[in-house]
């Protein structure tokens, strides 16, 4: 089980103008003192099409992390507009917060982000060269994916934990359909009979 549990992420300064930095206040809890720092990243998905347009807005190390409940604010500059395809400038995309420990990602928190014009005029007739205005992060609906990683740093264990047999749950015995059992034959004298 993960040593670090993310308890909450508060999206600060939202909605805000596109050029404002992203601010996430992250609260997490750690079971035991961590030997190494956690690495947090904010990734802005420039285009749904391809990861090519992903921008890592920033990455920070967080540490030292003793056992306990901690919080910090992760602030990262707004994405570089020049790297975003024009066609994806307006509309829905995603911002991701990931956390890795010993270079293994164990949690990925995703938010839908809606970039839109506040001016109804511009909404109707978006300019050819988009000029970003408002960014709205759908803070109420985070999508959290947790990954099982090796926290101990010993690789044998890792094999054990990582390669969970995907079919392990299908090992249930065949469903027991009601059916008639063969007749029992003669019962021994010392048996207790309930037939």
């Amino acid at each position: 089980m993960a040593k670090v549990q993310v308890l909450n992420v508060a999206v600060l300064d939202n909605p805000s103008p596109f050029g404002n930095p992203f601010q996430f206040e992250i609260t997490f809890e750690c079971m035991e003192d961590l030997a190494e720092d956690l690495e947090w990243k904010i990734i802005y998905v420039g285009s749904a099409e391809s990861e090519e347009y992903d921008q890592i807005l920033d990455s920070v190390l967080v540490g030292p992390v003793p056992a306990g409940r901690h919080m910090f604010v992760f602030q990262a500059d707004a994405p570089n507009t020049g790297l975003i395809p024009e066609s994806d400038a307006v509309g829905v995309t995603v911002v991701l917060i990931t956390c890795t420990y010993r270079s293994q990602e164990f949690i990925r928190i995703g938010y839908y982000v809606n970039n839109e014009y506040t001016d109804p005029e511009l909404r109707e007739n978006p300019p050819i060269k988009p000029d970003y205005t408002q960014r709205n992060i759908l803070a109420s609906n985070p999508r959290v994916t947790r990954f099982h990683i090796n926290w101990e740093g010993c690789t044998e264990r890792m094999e054990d934990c990582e390669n969970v047999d995907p079919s392990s749950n299908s090992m249930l015995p065949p469903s027991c359909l009601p059916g008639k059992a063969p007749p029992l034959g003669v019962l021994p004298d010392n048996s207790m009979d309930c037939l």
Partner: protein
Amino acid sequence: MKLLKPSWVSHNGKPIFSVDIHPDGTKFATGGQGEDSGKVMIWNMAPVLREEDEKNENISKMLCQMDNHLACVNCVRWSNNGLYLASGGDDKLVMVWKRAAFIGPSTVFGSSSKLANVEQWRCVTILRNHTGDVMDVAWSPRDVWLASCSVDNTIVIWNARKFPEMITTLRGHTGLVKGLTWDPVGKYIASQADDHSLKVWRTVDWQMDANITKPFSECGGTTHVLRLSWSPDGQYLVSAHAMNNSGPTAQIVERDGWKTNMDFVGHRKAVTVVKFNPKIFKKKQKNGSSPKPSCPYCCCAVGSKDRSLSVWLTSLKRPLVVIHDLFDKSIMDISWTLTGLGMLVCSMDGTVAYLDFSLDELGDPLNEEEKNSIHQNIYGKSLAITSTEAQLSTTIIENPEILKYQQERQNSAQANSGPGAAAPESSAPKLNSVMNGESLEDIRKNLLKKQVETRTADGRRRITPLCIAQLDTGDFSPALFNSVPILPSGSSMSSQLTPQLSSDSSPGQASSMGLKPTHDPMLTSPPPNNTAKPMEDNNDGVKSSLLLTSASKIEPMKALDSRFTERSKATPGVTAAISSTAKTKEETSSDSEDKMAAINKNLTFGKRKPELLLDGREVLEKRKKGRPRKDKMAASMAQPFTQVEGHVDDLKPENLLNSNSIQVSMEPSVFLEVENEVSMVAGSKLSQLRCSRDGRDWNTLLPSSVVVAAGSSDILAVACEDRMLSVFSSCGRRLLPAIQLGTPASALHCSAHYVMVLTAGATLSVWSVFTVLFSMKTTLFVSSGADTTVSQSLLTQQGVPVIGLSNGKSYCFSSSLETWTLIADKSDSLVQCADFRSCLPSHDTPVSSGPLAVMQGRNLNAGRLASRLSSTPHHLQQSMTLAFLENQLASALTLQSAQEYRYWLLIYARFLVNEGSEYRLRELCKELLGPVHKSAATSWEPTTLGLRKRELLREVLPVIGENLRFQRLFTEYQDQLELLRNK
């Protein structure tokens, strides 16, 4: 009998593999399959028991759910004290859960379900060892051990007081082990496996005691579980799936000789689970009927793959009740309430049934007292010796002292198991308290400005997170789990945990990513939305539709959704693994190097002197050939036993003979170096004795070759070839005139200011040097045959000489009795049969060390044979243990080894308390207390070996207080002690 199927107890229709009712009867746990993980759920019992509670919306039905298991949970079991819950699953793990105090209801971050966990249960430890699915877990009767069995064919016994420590692995099964049960007496654990066998293992040495195969030879491995059960009186063990004449049965195995003559017959398919009612019953006395005593009986429930449940009383030939068609699929687990009248049954079909019996149907349950007396009759001891809550409720505590003591004990054992069940308001978060009065809100406002941000050497930002709460480690009971600070966590459960095998799929194929995509609507399919469908078909259309859809409405898309679940390419799993390996290797190697360096440093520091002397020694080596050989009479006579001083000798005893330098004392550090034939003066050989004490050296010359040398922190002694014994102070002053020994010295010991010489003529002398007092001289009595030789000799700090003979016997000379007394005999059958391990003090107290332990061998093999004698009647073993412990006490007394005396005294007292021998306890207390009123005639000594007897009594009393049967004794002596203290 009443029957109820609470429909709200469900894992969303997924199979429920296990159910267990909490010992206090207020809640129960279920385990099984979750959405994409294993699931453990804790439910409120009240809505099951009472209809009005079920209808009352203010009473929460579900108390907590834990999705931390990666795969299906096969078994959930509460510890007998109710503080912990253990769960085992297909993810090969056993998790141990504990209720977290001070955390109120909460939802899981990012979880779709808004259903709050009313209680917070944190995983306090994860037990990893099994290499296959864990099928069953079981707590030992007193929660000392936790056993788990697995499809890897093994059973692992965990130390429940020191998780995650393993006691042992039981190997022997050749098939999947699917069920476990502890003997209520605590002597055995039984397991049933797919290898057509039921095995019984002894807890005393963890060896197999019985392997029962006959009733299982026809069985096929068709059941998911084989949950067997032991009757509460310990007399019968009932197996799951067995066959008799091609019919499925539950085999009854008698404890006496493991006979298999009886079985429960009637189920049409394999028996999956057997569960004994925890109570023993007796026939209900009807009004008017003659009150003739009837034989007590047990009650047993049997569940089968044929979906039916039967309940049996051992007094009846036919089942009490058989319920068919209770479920749509196989029964998986059964749990009785501690009252013995309620029972929960769960099934693969994902439902649970509750059965409620009346006293008329089952009979009168025996109370704890009666149950104990049954145990007492059969096994010679009561099982409820250490007080349980059940016993507390039936025994009246008569004295406030003992009540206080019992409460303290309970408090320390429970260490706030949390506020009352299902009382969220009382368990509000106490986070604010840790932050110097500043509220969380204030902190949050300024967090960005206040948080410490630094740059690492490679220029990266590093934020020091603000610690807003310590984990409530305080409630981590030291009584249980007193070991490493395993810090609990898990208030947020990952309901969406999706283990990924690879991360290089492209967007749009998200559904192939998850392990069980079909079970996973949350992750892969967007919320119901018509526009999502066409997009799925046409990925190229995503971009255009993006622009087309109204910007004000957020449209989840597959392509984007996939990004939520996919690991970033920057850190793919494989490279991560490799890099982390490399890192680990680097770390370990550098670590070990560091360690080596550190050790070397220590070594050079500690042994600086001998190393400095090395050169000289090498030169000497050649000359040493002419060194006098010792008299062979006393075999291996020169084994200076410097351990008497409790010091760890870096140098082996032989070093005295081979090298010429020994360290005789660590604190202060004293090295002794002997150089024979150092110079020839006028034809006579001179020997040199060099000594270095704390860096200051002195040396002296002796006219003859040194045969044996020894020293303590105070004195040094050497015996020479010419039978002269010289004694020097630590500064090199000669303390005694040269003593002429009758025969050559064979062993020489110094301890404190005592010198002991054992000569080849079998005489032993002890001198107290500072008082220039001759303590004793005695002739070794020649015992048992001529070939017995002295194999070990030592002198205690108190000047008591001890010798060990080659026949395994050790003696010490008691100056008060003026005779030799036997203190240890390795072949003593009492030693080997004594079983006092249950009375050993808790793990953290050091094992006894001292002359007695040295002579008896560090690994005192007491109890080694106990296992072999496990079939011997209890009272015999009890007597042997008692005799052994009394021997130990007497030996420690003669050896004047105070610490060991105290150690064995406490074990002895605990043993007496456990075995309930009041007379001896009373006599012991009386002796320790002494006369309350002083009179001239009393010969009572207030101290023994420098320990105040009344202080010892004060230590013994709490041990006595543990057993409520002795509360009068406790009170009596507690009062007298108080009285004496006030005087």
